[in-house]
């Protein structure tokens, strides 16, 4: 595990002065990162972006109201057992224990739900994890922030409707859902089935066995089905393989619509020209032309302090997603400090309040230099998702180009499904629903 740079510098200066190390208040974030293994591109990009954002806040603002951010990495290799081990290893570190846990893995998220709730450490799973945890009455410490998988899927169908000339034009259309044969991949099957009934399209679910480096049979079936659109729900090597095989069977890539875990540079570059025209959803965008990114360039990258080994990845989809993780974490800490005391280290329980009362409207997002970079967000006791907005990007062969504004998800479909699923979980676990009217 890496010790944080801040802590090391502090100890070093104190040691040099021959005094006992008196550290200013700091806020510790334990990071279960993965920088090796099959999903290292995602892990290194997202944790790299989050760390660079933390570094920028420390360098530019002196931390959050003077409280320096510190962090520690623990390698999970995207493995559930290691994720739990890292959680346990880091939960008591720092002056107030681990402030927040970012599993960056749906599997690890599921594995730590009970522990984190018992330990009162909030878990943030931005755009992944357990969808029904959006119901904060059942999952007080779990926050699938911004947009969960079901919301995202309703936006995808909306996008297809827009492209076809209206939602009524979906009747009779054929959609194939090509998914990674895992819990993550299967997560959107129920919502797609509900939407198919509602709008009159047919949906065929085709599974791809892990890791997805062979998809000839699925794409030959797709050619037989002759769908109007293919929804790609891949991860890792499954994504470029899907695009390459689509080209091999002659399926147009501008009719392939990917989830955000299929929408990074690492998913399209290996596919070469086969990826041109492919469209992916996103709750964040690529690029460096945002004030927040310019500050990271100025205070971190230009000074040679970036966590990224490959500086060309600064501004990539994964890196920027990490910056979004950083923004959400820092703003929740700031929010908690407003209530529990500025300039003090907050506890996990206080952080939970900070996240649950996070309100990032357009004005605040503009002040953060992130207009258009992430959507507005309003989290509450009952709504741990907070947004439900999605943008779409198209790969032009060299870079992602944003092709829509934020599109609102269909909460009329999603919310009842979330509440039904969460209520079932609560019943199984014997949990009593929180009364949000009494929460302050």
């Amino acid at each position, binding site marked *: 595990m890496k010790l944080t740079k801040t802590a090391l510098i502090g100890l070093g200066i104190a040691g040099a002065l021959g005094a006992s190390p008196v550290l200013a208040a700091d806020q510790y974030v334990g990071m279960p990162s993965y*920088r*090796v*293994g*099959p*999903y*290292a*591109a995602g892990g*290194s990009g997202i944790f790299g972006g989050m760390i660079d954002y933390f570094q920028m806040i420390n360098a530019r603002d002196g931390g959050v109201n003077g409280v320096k951010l510190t962090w520690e990495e623990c390698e999970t290799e995207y493995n559930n057992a290691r994720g739990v081990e890292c959680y346990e290893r880091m939960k008591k570190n720092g002056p107030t224990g681990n402030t927040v846990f970012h599993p960056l893995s749906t599997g690890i998220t599921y594995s730590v739900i009970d522990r984190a709730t018992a330990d009162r450490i909030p878990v943030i799973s931005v755009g992944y994890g357990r969808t029904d945890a959006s119901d904060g009455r059942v999952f007080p410490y779990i926050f699938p922030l911004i947009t969960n998988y079901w919301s995202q899927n309703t936006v995808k169908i909306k996008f297809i409707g827009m492209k076809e000339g209206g939602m009524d034009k979906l009747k009779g259309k054929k959609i194939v859902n090509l998914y990674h*044969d895992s819990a993550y991949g299967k997560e959107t099957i129920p919502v797609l089935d509900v939407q198919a009934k509602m709008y009159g399209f047919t949906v065929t*679910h*085709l*599974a*791809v*066995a*892990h*890791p997805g*480096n*062979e998809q*000839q*049979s*699925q794409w*030959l*079936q797709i*050619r*037989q089905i002759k769908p109007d659109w293919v929804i790609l729900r891949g991860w*890792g*090597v499954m994504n*470029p*393989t899907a695009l*390459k095989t689509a*080209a*091999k*069977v*002659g399926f147009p890539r501008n009719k392939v619509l990917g989830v955000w875990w299929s929408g990074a540079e*690492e998913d399209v*570059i*290996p*596919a*070469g020209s*086969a990826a041109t025209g492919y469209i992916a959803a996103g709750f964040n965008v690529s690029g460096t032309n945002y004030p927040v990114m310019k500050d990271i360039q100025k205070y971190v990258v230009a000074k040679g302090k970036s966590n990224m*080994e*490959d500086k060309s*990845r600064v501004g990539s989809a994964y890196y920027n997603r990490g910056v979004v993780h950083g923004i959400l974490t820092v703003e929740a800490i700031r929010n908690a400090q407003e209530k529990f005391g500025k300039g003090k280290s907050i506890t996990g329980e206080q952080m939970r309040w900070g996240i649950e009362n996070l309100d990032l409207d357009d004005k605040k997002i503009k002040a953060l230099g992130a207009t258009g970079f992430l959507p507005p967000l309003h989290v509450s006791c009952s709504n741990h998702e907070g947004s439900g907005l999605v943008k779409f990007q198209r790969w032009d062969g060299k870079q992602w180009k944003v092709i829509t504004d934020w599109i609102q998800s269909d909460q009329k479909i999603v919310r009842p499904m979330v509440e039904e699923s969460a209520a079932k979980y609560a019943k199984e676990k014997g949990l009593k629903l929180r009364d949000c009217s009494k929460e302050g």
Partner: protein
Amino acid sequence: MNFFFEVLIGGLLSGVMYALVALGFVLIYKASGVFNFAQGAMVFFAALTFVSIMELGVPFWPAFALALASMVVLAVVTERVVLRPLVNQPQITLFMATIGLGFLIEGLAQGMWGAAVHGLEIGIVDEPIAWTMDNWGIGVSTFDLFAAGVSAVLVTVLAVFFNKTRVGRALRAVADDHQAALAIGIPLQSIWRIVWAVAGFVALVAGVMWGARNGVQFALTFVALKALPVLIIGGFESVAGAIVGGLIIGASEKIGEVYVGPLVGGGIEGWFAYMVALLFLLVRPEGLFGEKHIDRV
């Protein structure tokens, strides 16, 4: 019917890609009786080294030569550090050593070149040939045909090497009995270095082909999983068996996925190949081309 033949041909050509990886296993098993669990890691190491050197601005063939040189160095170091101390140890010990070696090579590759995903273009398009589409209504990929050609060349070269050269015969002698081979003056250490270097070459070719198809990334290590049922069917000691096994596995898993998959929820390719291999094991445990061992009691 066209669709069936398209699935079949696609499967056979995919099987050739599996056979490319399986060949590396066969070489080492044939020459040393060791099942090299590190072969998948070697494919990853070779491809990552090759593409990283190319990204430094080195042209294709010099980069290939440099990557090959790195595989030779890896072979020499493996022989010196891992194999030599384990001469005459039970085969299970050598097998366990290759498991450790696999993890070491994976870490070494990522430590040297990073864990980023790389695209690799070798100038062969992975698109259907217009002529076969127009005349037969069957899509056959140019890239897959090229891979089949590469495999054919590789198999021919290896068959000649094993059967017609002194080194090849020495390799087979070592595989039969380490001590007997040493007793008649065959230099065991040199033989192991040679065979691991040749397996490194095969890993490089397989890595370049798979890398060009799906990108050079850690998932290359998983292609070894596809090679195992191929070996069970073809036999661990037969170069030709690797190809035949690859064709059987490729065709059966594709036909299984398309025609059986929808009945059981799909995504069966991963285990279907192993099920076919298991059925072969029941009927012919040594594989189609494997040597039948008879022990006298």
